[in-house]
């Protein structure tokens, strides 16, 4: 008898835990719904019967703080401390989790995570709150308005009970059509500078699982030997020597000719066996140029008539320049750059009952799913994706060809498709493996009038387009102009008269990709160098000069000006530095976010420059997690400055010269002194923070060094005459 009762109780409570959770999200028509009202629900929040609140995160976490940010929105609407909201990554399903800013593809990029989700997560959280309060109102027999919610409890005049007591009741209720969002004046979690990241603990004590850490039963490791020249194809290979390596299994040629897959029982054996292969390549269609020639070709292109008119305005700058009292002219060169994420690329594919499961720090689940479906010839819905932490991306974990996912799928299929296969890239693979920030050249000629004003601006750009011919060509390319080649120039916030922007595409087989801030990574450098030179020619203060060209009264110009003014104030701009240090300024808008930076340097340009301080001001709309924003500003500045100081991917007869960190030297702890960030208070919709601090960082540094007497416009700085301490 006793046993019988216990069993019943057990069954009931199990049902309560599994069946009566309150789950709120959106149905396929983007209408707010719960698991009761919609069978095909996209859940954004789940409250379990025991009261545990979980935010279901649709974007991936590569360090930018998305998981913390989205959990913050849920915590705010439920009046719950952030550390009481659990986070879970959503499975791959574009029909449920499409990114509205990517035309419905599920993915993270372009600093869109917060912009895309700010309202969705708040509405879902507010609906869950209203449903819990409705439940308590019924149970307690008092009006809804007498009940409040906070710290996981529902409260009325003389009573209080944990939300767990109302989850079951709430889950059966209808979803409010328009739940009332909290007024920004009531925000306690959003905008709280003291919030902790939700992923701190696991990432500090080593328990966080990254894709590189996946270890499944019976798993083997695959590494790929790729052509040392871009566009080369495999002719033949011989693995006789590899057979001596303990743990080596075998090698297979890619059917595409792209290389050789080496299988082994563990990573070390795979890497060693690959080194032992003898391979012949066909380089007849390969890139065989060296860096000097690549640079010369791009500079020739910007000194010639351009292929495309990027503004389509057919502005003739000729007269404006001819009649100017002086013309400033500069050439710029930006080398290829690797992303060099801290975690080299890797993913694991394992068989399931109906298809496969992909373990990946997956930036673009829809793309990965499509790639696996195409290679493995199985329906997308039978491909599960387990998203784990990504050890950085900076854009690299998402390519339009889904390159490493295709490699992993081929490796899985060529091994028979019955055994888990983990694809591993080494650091050398990463540095030599392409999908670079493309090399670009710019040539700019500015006419300066008698009063120092700009009379015309002739701007020519050449480089390999990122989107043209790819999956998003239709969105990003118009009239032959790939937006990513000219963004930040043709849409500059400065009121520049008679601006012509010409573009010539480079057609090298070297693979290219978006790289933290994409086109802005070179266009901001050019714009902000030229504005400094124009101010100098006009004999005016660089900040005052910029403000003049931002005085047209548009909302964007006003936000940018406010950011710039605060940067001037906080950096001590204008107070003549008695210590001999010099300051450089740059500003840029990208991904909807406005950033200005002032870099302070000491030392002599040709001897030993030290970066003493960077002052950064950002306007990214409502600051959801101020400390995450500050961290992203610091990160983007370090990333930008590190590369502009000393990084390049160079080629010798088509072969990448660099191979690992010793010759692609990353930013180190001693390279930058202090970074001080200020956030402009705002009620505008939040915009991205992962990328926008990168574009101004390089030109602000270069402008500071120019104030020391050395103006460098070919990058990296250290290869063009600047010595750093």
């Amino acid at each position, binding site marked *: 008898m006793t046993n019988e009762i216990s069993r019943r109780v057990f069954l009931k409570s199990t049902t309560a835990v599994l069946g009566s959770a309150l789950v709120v999200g959106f149905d396929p028509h983007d209408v707010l719904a719960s698991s009761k009202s919609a069978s095909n629900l996209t859940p954004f929040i789940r409250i379990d019967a025991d009261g545990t609140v979980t935010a279901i995160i649709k974007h991936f976490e590569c360090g930018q703080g998305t998981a913390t940010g989205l959990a913050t929105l849920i915590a705010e609407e439920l009046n719950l401390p952030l550390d009481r909201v659990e986070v879970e990554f959503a499975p791959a399903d574009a029909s449920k989790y499409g990114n509205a800013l990517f035309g419905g593809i599920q993915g993270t990029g372009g600093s869109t995570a917060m912009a895309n989700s700010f309202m969705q997560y708040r509405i879902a959280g507010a609906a869950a709150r209203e449903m819990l309060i409705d439940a308590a109102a019924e149970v307690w027999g008092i009006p809804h308005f007498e009940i409040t919610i906070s710290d996981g409890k529902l409260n009325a005049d003389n009573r209080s009970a944990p939300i767990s007591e109302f989850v079951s009741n709430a889950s059966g209720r209808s979803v409010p059509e328009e739940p009332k969002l909290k007024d920004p004046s009531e925000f306690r979690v959003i905008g709280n500078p003291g919030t902790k990241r939700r992923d701190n603990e696991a990432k500090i*004590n080593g328990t966080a699982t990254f894709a590189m*850490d996946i270890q499944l039963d019976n798993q083997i490791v695959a590494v790929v030997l790729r052509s040392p020249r871009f566009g080369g194809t495999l002719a033949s290979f011989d693995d006789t020597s590899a057979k001596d390596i303990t743990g080596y299994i075998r090698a297979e040629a890619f059917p595409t000719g792209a290389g050789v897959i080496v299988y082994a029982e563990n990573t070390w054996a795979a890497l060693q066996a690959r080194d032992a292969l003898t391979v012949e390549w066909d380089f007849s269609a390969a890139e065989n140029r060296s860096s000097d020639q690549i640079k010369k070709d791009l500079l020739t292109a910007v000194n010639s008539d351009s292929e495309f008119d990027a503004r389509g305005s057919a502005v003739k700058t000729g007269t404006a320049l001819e009649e100017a009292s002086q013309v400033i002219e500069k050439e710029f060169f930006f080398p290829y750059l690797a992303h060099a994420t801290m975690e080299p690329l890797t993913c694991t594919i394992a068989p399931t009952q109906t298809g496969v499961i992909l373990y990946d720090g997956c930036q673009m689940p829809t793309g990965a799913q499509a790639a696996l479906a195409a290679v493995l010839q199985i329906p997308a819905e039978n491909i599960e994706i387990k998203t784990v932490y990504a050890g950085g991306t900076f854009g690299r974990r998402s390519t339009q060809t889904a390159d490493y996912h295709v490699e992993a799928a081929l490796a899985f299929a060529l091994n028979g498709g019955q055994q888990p296969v983990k694809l591993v890239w080494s650091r050398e693979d990463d540095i030599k493996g392409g999908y670079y920030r493309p090399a670009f050249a710019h040539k700019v000629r500015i006419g300066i009038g008698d009063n120092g004003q700009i009379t015309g601006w002739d701007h020519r750009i050449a480089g390999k387009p990122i989107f043209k011919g790819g999956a998003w060509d239709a969105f990003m390319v118009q009239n032959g102009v790939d937006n990513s080649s000219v963004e930040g120039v043709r849409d500059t916030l400065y009121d520049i008269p008679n601006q012509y922007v010409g573009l010539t595409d480079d057609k090298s087989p070297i693979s290219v990709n978006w790289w933290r801030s994409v086109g802005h990574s070179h266009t901001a450098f050019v714009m902000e160098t030229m504005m400094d030179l124009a101010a100098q020619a006009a004999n005016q203060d660089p900040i005052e000069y910029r403000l003049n060209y931002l005085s047209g009264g548009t909302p964007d110009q006003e936000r940018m000006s406010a950011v710039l003014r605060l940067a001037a104030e906080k950096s001590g701009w204008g107070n003549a530095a008695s210590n001999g240090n010099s300051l450089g300024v740059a500003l840029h808008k990208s991904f909807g976010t406005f950033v200005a930076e002032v870099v302070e340097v000491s030392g002599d340009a040709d001897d030993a420059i030290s970066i003493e301080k960077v002052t950064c001001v950002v306007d990214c709309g409502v600051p959801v997690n101020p400390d995450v924003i500050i961290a992203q500003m610091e990160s983007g500045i370090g990333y930008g400055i590190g590369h502009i100081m000393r990084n390049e991917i160079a080629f010798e007869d088509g072969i990448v010269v660099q191979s690992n960190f010793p010759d692609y030297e990353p930013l180190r702890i001693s390279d930058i002194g202090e970074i001080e960030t200020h956030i402009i208070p705002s009620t505008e919709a939040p915009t991205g923070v992962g990328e926008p601090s990168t574009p101004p960082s390089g030109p602000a540094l270069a402008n500071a060094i120019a104030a020391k007497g050395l103006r460098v416009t070919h990058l990296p700085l250290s290869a063009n005459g600047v010595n750093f301490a």
Partner: protein
Amino acid sequence: MSISLNINGENRSVDVPSDTPLLWVIRDELQLTGTKFGCGVASCGACTVHVDGQPVRSCQTYLEDIEGSEITTIEGVKSKTAEAVFEAWDELNVVQCGYCQSGQVMSAIGLLEESPKPTVEEIEAYMWGNVCRCATYQRIRAAVQLAAEKLEA
């Protein structure tokens, strides 16, 4: 061949060639994945572990060279210093992508064991070999100082 080693206070036996880097023994054989593979050439510090209390780069440490030594990984590091470092890292929200951080933490513990109150210059010199591609360096500097204060208190 079978090799025995003392890791996180336990004696473990692994069957690998003796020229296998310690990193791959730790990760692939012992499945202690908190120690990370970043470069393989001792240039980034993601693979930092302690051998007899000293931080070393496990990707360039070979089993034959460390016979009889005590190896400690991020999973096994336990001391007052380690606790202070963990707390400081949490309080200052140091981590971003997090992939380098177990190596950063292992180096920071090594530094504070050796020099309980390091100057900024000492911190920069000691931590120079630990790369963070998210550039969390400013917070690492501050967190080492905060951990030092905690230890002093």
